[in-house]
């Protein structure tokens, strides 16, 4: 096992190298000019006169400063060298170290994702089990229909409606319209602050979770159904065990395997954040940062985020493989003597 993990970790490096090489080139080949975006023509109206007389010299200055005057392969190796020393570079947009911008936002995205995963798992798995155990019952059908409706509602639409109906004095004014805390947050007591944070998180967490409920519970349902049809379940039932023990003790463990596979993809998603929810609720999270980075052609930021996601994906896959062998002893990664 340790051998296997060690080998896998060694494999990380060539994998990441190839990923970064490809993304680096794609990034540079996309149209749009970071120096232009830096100079400030980011709005709908370009400026004239006293405020923004942009000369060619300005562009040249930034090109040189950003190292864009060198050929792409050189830029890549410079970037790689810096990464090896732990330097992710400074944002083209505001010269802040990219690492600071990311570290500032990870806790936000992580909080929302973690809460939302807790919510999804704690609802979707029981619902999936219930549906499988009572296949084709009215309860199964009702939850199926309901979850599919949830699944097909687009995030931005639900979020916009939620703001319209739940955050406005015209209808119900139950939740704040956005942000992470109230403006006078600091004046609150400890419990007041805690509640304020929760209050601000309810809608974003709920809306982030909506579509995943259906997905995950359907996954759970089908994998459970598959397991239930196995011989050993029939044996268990034939032995006269009650249905609850059969499902919860014998079937559940095996039916979790596909769910674990899904879990592997969660790691990058957790820090990746959600652009739409973050934008609508003004949550300074990773999704927003990444999207804005792309619009600004902020290469160091884009590369840092992509690297982060790549690393997490690779790590996620490894973790999944390890959990597999724990959940299902039949799966093993070390060579056995025949």
């Amino acid at each position, binding site marked *: 096992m340790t051998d296997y993990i060690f080998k896998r970790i060694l494999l990380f490096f060539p994998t990441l190298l190839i990923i970064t090489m490809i993304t680096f080139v794609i990034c540079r080949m996309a*149209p*749009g*000019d970071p120096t*232009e*975006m830096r*100079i*400030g*023509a*980011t*709005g*709908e*109206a*370009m*400026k*004239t*006169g*006293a*405020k923004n*007389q*942009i*000369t*060619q*010299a*300005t*562009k040249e200055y930034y090109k040189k400063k950003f190292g864009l005057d060198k050929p792409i392969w050189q830029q890549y190796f410079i970037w790689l060298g810096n990464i090896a020393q732990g330097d992710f570079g400074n944002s083209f*947009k*505001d*010269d*802040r*170290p990219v690492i*600071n911008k990311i570290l*500032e*936002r990870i806790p936000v995205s992580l909080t929302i994702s973690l809460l939302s995963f807790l919510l999804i798992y704690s609802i979707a798995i029981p619902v999936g089990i219930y549906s499988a155990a009572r296949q084709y019952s009215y309860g199964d059908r009702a939850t199926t229909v309901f979850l599919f409706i949830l699944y097909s509602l687009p995030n*931005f*639409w639900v979020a*916009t409606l939620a*703001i*319209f109906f739940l*955050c*406005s*004095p*015209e209808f119900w*004014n139950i939740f*704040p*319209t*956005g*942000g*992470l*805390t109230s*403006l*006078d947050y600091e004046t609150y007591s400890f419990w007041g602050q805690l509640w304020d944070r929760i209050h601000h998180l309810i809608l974003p967490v709920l809306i982030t979770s909506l579509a995943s409920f259906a997905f995950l519970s359907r996954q759970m349902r089908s994998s459970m159904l598959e397991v239930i049809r196995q011989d050993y379940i029939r044996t268990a039932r034939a032995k006269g065990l009650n249905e609850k023990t059969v499902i919860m003790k014998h079937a559940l463990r095996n039916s979790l395997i596909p769910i674990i596979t899904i879990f592997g993809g969660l790691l990058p998603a957790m820090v990746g954040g959600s652009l739409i929810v973050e*934008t*609508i*609720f*003004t949550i*300074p999270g990773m999704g*927003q940062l990444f999207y*804005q980075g792309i*619009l*600004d052609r902020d290469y160091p930021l884009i590369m840092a985020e992509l690297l982060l996601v790549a690393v997490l994906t690779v790590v996620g896959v490894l973790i999944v493989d390890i959990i597999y062998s724990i959940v299902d002893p039949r799966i093993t990664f070390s060579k056995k003597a025949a």
Partner: protein
Amino acid sequence: MKKFGLFFIIIVSLTVLITIAGGRKKKPIIQSNVTKMLTPLQEPDLSGATVGDWVIKQEMSDAEKLNPVVTNDATADEIISYYLFEKLLEQDRITYELYPQLAKNMPTLSEDHLTYTFELKDNVKFSDGTPLTGEDIIFTFKAIKNPFTDAQALRNYFTDLDRVELVDGDKYKVKFTFKQPYFRAIYAIGDIKIVPKKILDIENINDRLSWEMLNEANETLDPAKYPEMKKFADFLNQEDVSRNPKYVVGSGPYKLEKWVTGQQISVVRNNDYWNKDEGKVYPEKIIWRTISDQNAAIAAAKNKETDLMYVIRPIDFVENVKNPEQFGLKKALVLEPVYSYIGWNNNSPLFNDPKVRMAMSYAVDRNMIIDKIFYGMGIPIQSHIFYKSQYVDSTLPVIPFDLEKSKELLAEAGWKDTDGDGILDKVINGQKVDFKFTFTNNNNPTRKQTALVIIDALKQIGIQADIQDYEWSVFLDKVKKHDFDAAIMAWQLSVGPEDPYQIWHSSQADGEGSNHISYKNQRSDELIELNRITFDDSVRKEILNEWQEIIYKDQPYTFLWTPTGRYLYSDRFKNTRWYSYPNSPLMKEWWSSRDLARYK
């Protein structure tokens, strides 16, 4: 940031489009007589004014840097310019004339127009208590002139600045010397926000940097030769210097309190403000709160979570906030120095003839578009100069919507439908060319609607036009590289005398200059150059008038309209004055009576 909520915008704009394209005669909600709709500028209302209540303004995006030397973004510029820092001269929000702020009087200008001598007020203090002197002014300009600082945007204005020095060692008298005369130099100097030397130059590095060294360094750009210059620049470029209240210290009426990235920036009233008696300011705190989604922003305003917002979409302003009083809100409409235009690529064989461009201008139904797409909130214009400026040539008539006239002009220019396929054609360089072109758009829904209306009118006179959307940075790239036929764009203007050089001079037409449409006219160039070295205002008026007439005749742009700024604000405030100025409202003037105050 405006591209967020894109889907919703598209849905809304599609609905609007269908209504327009369907040709249903829907009565416009507001008539195009925009001058009647504009919010008048009230007299100051200070009776019973009390200090206290906070103002919270919604912003689309967070600021980037709050150090005025290195900043270059709009949100930061507002906070820096009107609340945290001060300048030698300020521009009057109504007359657009310069008046002294940190300076005692207007500077004296030498006869050769090369030196400006300022006398400073001797009672000015930074918010930490240190007096502001000529040393700070010299330091600020040295920091800008230092080629290794991120002050590149500002440095452009001072390529001709030779030196700034004290006169006879007097700490309250500074002299600026330029290498060449330029009429806007005084605006450029006057506009610089002064930062404290004591806080930003702890090691006194700048005392050792002479102006000769700075000028030389600007030519060689070699950091190895000037290690101290580079060291100081590295310090100034740091993140902390632009964000930490310890470093963001100005002489303005407010102090930076807190900056929560992506959420809010708050400033508090400086109780030891040096200019307390004259520059009265009322809110105890002003907060810029980021809400990037327009629907959420409007809900927040209705919810009393914010007190002031700029409404981006005309439809939201009219339809989404029908009864503002229900939420304790008011609406304000002001003309701000911005205008939209269609740029015709003068290099294109289709548009290199002024007659054709004039014909296109006749095919644009400005009034209808303003009524239908902007709900009447815009004013048709004819010139590059801001509508409210004293330099605008108001005798230029608005070109009416007249397709017959348009056809006539096209025929005069040689465009006829010779093959009977319904599309005009002409033989250019021995080849028959059809009149077909594409509008390049930057995903902006109102501009797209505008283009579609124009395309429809052009079809009636035998011209086939299409539209193609691009993401903003790609759009910008295409425009800068002159890779387009026509595009609807906008310019933000400066108030006061305009220098058209950047946009209209033929030297800016090649490469990536701002003369994107490659307009070239010798007389126009001469006038633009003359304007730059003219210091007499009445002469300038004549020059700019003649120049505007040339542009009018040539129609390199079809000038469209100046849209109105659309604001929503809380009705509890008094003295809310609406200026035709960039960043129209000045929140530090606002106050509310004790009983109405929300924050006490």
